[in-house]
């Protein structure tokens, strides 16, 4: 692992550069997107539909950032192998490093997004407490989850090129299955158990707890996220090892 440290660093920088190259505004786009979404959704939900959630922009934006970290990270990883076909077909190195580097580039991007939007959140009335210090821990747990999912998605996309369309739809469904635009209290009692098993629900709720409700996430929140993350990592590892030998042929 350590012998590849420098390679992972270089690949991550490369991914990050390629993501923002060829656009004048570059990184600014990734800030404008959640902001635009926040404005639109706030207009629709608190002005037109009157959901009656206190400080809806902060309620929404905190969840949106946690969701975007997952959705963009996994979507980017879909092309981490096929997007590097000039490397994969010409030279050997452990291919999972490409997936990891794609995820790390997204981690940098999302962290910058968080950092840049924090002043806006404070301006919108978010109260910063010591609980906010837990944010890196939540992001780290989310990263494990993203890496596990990516290890499943990236190799499958080499064999089945419509996997990114399928994943797009899955993410759209996921957006509404998680408490992003609504509060978890809207979920009927008898569904709550199944609903709350979703690790992304837990991550979004935990983020909201530390930044919006100003409470501590529970031990169960962290356990579910970490357990599902490690399980997906194991499944991802097995799938990746199975499909990796024929990458150069299928790509």
């Amino acid at each position, binding site marked *: 692992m350590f012998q590849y440290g420098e*390679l992972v660093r*270089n690949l991550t920088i490369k991914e990050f550069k390629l993501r923002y190259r060829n656009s004048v505004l570059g990184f600014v786009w990734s800030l404008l997107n959640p902001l635009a979404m926040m404005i639109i959704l706030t207009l629709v939900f608190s002005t037109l539909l009157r959901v009656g959630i206190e400080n809806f922009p902060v309620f929404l934006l905190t969840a949106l950032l946690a969701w975007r970290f997952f959705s963009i990270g996994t979507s980017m990883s879909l092309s981490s192998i096929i997007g590097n076909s*000039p490397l*994969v077909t*010409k*030279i050997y190195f452990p291919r999972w490093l490409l997936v990891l580097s794609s995820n790390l580039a997204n981690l940098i991007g999302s962290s910058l997004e968080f950092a840049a939007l924090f002043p806006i959140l404070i301006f919108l009335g978010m109260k910063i407490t010591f609980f906010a210090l837990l944010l890196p821990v939540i992001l780290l747990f989310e990263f494990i989850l993203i890496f596990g999912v990516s290890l499943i998605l990236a190799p499958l996309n080499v064999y089945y090129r419509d996997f990114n369309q399928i994943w797009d739809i899955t993410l759209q469904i996921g957006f509404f299955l998680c408490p992003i635009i609504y509060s978890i209290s809207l979920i009927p009692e008898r569904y709550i158990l199944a609903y709350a098993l979703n690790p992304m629900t837990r991550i979004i709720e935990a983020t909201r707890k530390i930044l919006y409700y100003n409470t501590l996430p529970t031990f169960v929140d962290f356990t579910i996220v970490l357990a599902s993350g490690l399980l997906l990592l194991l499944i991802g590892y097995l799938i990746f090892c199975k499909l990796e*030998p024929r990458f*150069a*042929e299928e790509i």
Partner: protein
Amino acid sequence: MQVIQVEDLWKKFKIPHERRTTILENVAGALQILEGKRFTYEEFWALKAINFTVNHGESIGVIGENGSGKSTLLKVIANILRPDRGRVKASGKIAPILELGVGFHPDLTVKENILVYGSIMGLKNSDVKRRMSSMLEFSGLERFKDAKLKNLSSGMQMRLGFSVAIETNPDIFLIDEALAVGDMEFQQKCMNKFKDFKEEKKTIVLVSHALNLVNEFCEKTVFLSRGEMISFGKTGNTVNEYVKHVGGHN
């Protein structure tokens, strides 16, 4: 000391009659099977029962007609493709210089590519930066160091790949027709480099159609035809056999 061991190596490719790369196509295909139509593909054995070993410091030529499995053989030795049967063992750092390139990304600049490639080859960034100028100098592409790779001509890309690969100090070179696109001056420069490598006891596997090059350069040669190894031995004998083989078809 044996550096490359190829033991009973078989490699097959699947050639589907209808290529399916999406799940939708696969589902549609599965429905057709239910209706009685069969999903068919041909198996194509690109390499069959290949056996040979390369000793430390040897230069080996690989010759044969188009489609005989030469490039596949190099890719299996480089661990880019995996064998279906048998095994290949190569010890030491391998620099594959395959058709048009060594593993560069078209959207990155020359300098960025050199850094990424260097670290794939196990070099530290500080090492790569130190050697950067001699890499660029050998390739003659100093002026283009900030150009994106895709904007270089194929000849320039190959020059760059070769120049960078040789500076990473590998133990084994796998070279697939790499010199074919270079101009005369560059080919001469490469030939001199090869001679240095031979003196430094580097191991070289050279795929080429240029029989004079193979004759001059390689002690032993593998002759492949339709995935089978027809002969392996002293270059003079093998090349003669190849020439006879080609003549026999006419």
